[in-house]
């Protein structure tokens, strides 16, 4: 069940063949002198063009840091990040980011927010105006163009941010747990909407989450990250057929097997995070332990 259908291919697909994103031995350390904290170390992975890559890991594990490095908001301490073959020098319109909490400009109306990108670059011609109207309509926000972000519901704010990002025709969309704050019904609607939209537009997506179901539903490839200092612990291909429906996945054997595998790895990383004092992961370890207390699963230790 997804939002009202309307022609999705109206969105302009990127002309040049985009070669994806490449991270080689990236490291990020905060603080200097004796008190340094390495958040990312020897982290290398590839985000393939036109595919849905999802990064999953225990909360507080430096995933957001990696997003800031790829988006160019911060330089890596060492290592190389290449987007479309060129090293990242700073933020650029080819990479648009959607954060966990809304980042709409509170003092601009929905319409002003959506058209901010082209206007800021001085490229706001009639053609951009038409695209802005098309995007706002497709997101079901025509009746809220004149309203301020504080007056929109959570779901509406997310859709407005999507429209704003699409206006800049990014080569890659970067999303940092975008649907976490929404109520579960709106979350379900947004997930299915974004999946169908992603499939239609062949855009490269890099999606970060702590929710295993979201990962399995959206991803072509899942990167399971270790606890701080973050690096790739495992790469799991999600070979479920598309288009996928959330309701169908719950009964799907293959989906449940993938879920069990991902959860087992997440548990170990969370246990290590917990042992290092991370209070958020305490719940996760407790939850996983109860979740898997009865039948012996593959990961029980050898003895």
């Amino acid at each position, binding site marked *: *069940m997804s939002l009202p259908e309307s022609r999705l291919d109206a969105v302009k697909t990127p002309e040049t063949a985009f070669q994806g994103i490449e991270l080689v031995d990236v490291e990020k350390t905060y603080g200097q002198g004796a008190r340094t904290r390495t958040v990312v170390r020897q982290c290398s992975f590839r985000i393939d063009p036109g595919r849905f890559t999802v990064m999953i890991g225990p909360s507080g594990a430096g995933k957001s840091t990696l997003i800031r490095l790829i988006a160019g908001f911060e330089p890596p301490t060492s290592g190389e990040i290449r987007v479309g073959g060129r090293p990242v020098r700073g933020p650029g319109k080819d990479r648009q980011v959607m954060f966990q909490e809304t980042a709409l400009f509170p003092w601009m109306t929905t319409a002003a927010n959506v058209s901010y990108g082209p206007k800021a670059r001085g490229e706001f011609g009639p053609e951009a105006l038409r695209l802005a109207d098309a995007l706002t309509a497709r997101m079901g926000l025509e009746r809220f163009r004149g309203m301020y972000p504080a007056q929109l519901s*959570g779901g509406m704010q997310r859709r407005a941010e999507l429209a704003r990002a699409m206006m800049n025709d990014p080569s890659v969309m970067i999303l940092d747990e975008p649907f976490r704050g929404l*109520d579960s019904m709106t979350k379900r609607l947004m997930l299915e909407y974004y999946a169908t939209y992603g499939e239609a537009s062949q855009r490269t997506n890099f999606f970060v989450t702590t929710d295993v179901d979201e990962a399995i539903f959206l991803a072509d490839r899942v990167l399971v990250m270790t606890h701080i200092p973050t690096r790739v612990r495992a790469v799991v291909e999600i070979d479920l057929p598309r288009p996928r429906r959330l309701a169908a996945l719950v009964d799907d054997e293959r989906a449940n097997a993938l879920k069990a595998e991902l959860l087992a790895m997440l548990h170990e990383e969370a246990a290590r995070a917990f042992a290092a004092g991370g209070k958020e992961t*305490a719940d996760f370890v407790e939850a996983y332990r109860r979740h898997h207390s009865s039948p012996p699963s593959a990961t029980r230790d*050898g003895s």
Partner: protein
Amino acid sequence: MTSGAIAWRPAGTQRAAAPVLPRSARADALPRRRGAIRIADAVKYYGTGESRVLAVDHCSLDIAAGEVFVVIGPSGCGKTTLLNALAGFHSLDAGSIHLDGELLCGPGREKAPIGADRIVVFQNGALFPWKTVLENVAFGPAMRGTIPRTELLERARRRLAEAGLQGYEESYPGETSSGVKRRVEIVRALMNDPAVLLLDEPFRALDALTKAMMHEALIASYLRTGSTVFFITHDIEEAVFLGSRVAIMTSRPCRPKKILSIDIPYPRGRETVTSRRFRELVAEAMAAVHEEALKAYALGEKEG
């Protein structure tokens, strides 16, 4: 790769000790028979003059004592209004509410009295930040002075340990994770042995696995005390997993559109989520809710 034939046995014992059954599964934890709620033709408006909005329209519900009654519906459809009326926070414009036959609010009494027989667990938590976890849990009986202090603290420690929260007694809520805060709040509520436990989307911002743990904790504590549970949520799976009956409410104004009875026995655990009956009930609820959700979406509802 096995590690040879080490015969592991419980430490310091010669023979295997008898397994100790978790208390909740024992048959003798019979819930007491009280907390029957009857809501008859409840009506509630918001705002005045032309901006008046009908939030609840002649809503009638019969909730049996000791039942887990879950209310689900699109955002902003006035579910919270019912909870507020039950708790005595808000009044009703018409209709009445009875608890175990006694009039809570209705003709002659505009607002139900706020009392420890109907305790609310708020959406994003209401633990007192300036009191430690132990002081929070012991707050209710301490206020009413029903139990001497030393015994009260001892009982509070035991209840926290039962919920797997030993070690957190002396920390402040601000220092603990959201999962721990939620569990402490439920323990605080049940310390007062309420007739009705009112929950307003308590597990909304938690990640999937922590939410599953919270469900098991709620069911375990429900089995121990047997209070009636009135639970509001958006999450369909959560509603079907927890509820003995699930009422799907219409979009604004709020009226019970369909009531599903969940014929899965308690206690429910991990295997319930994968059972076929559970999937059928979720599908049925999903269909009914989505109709309402689309109506709400079309109206451009702002979250309730």
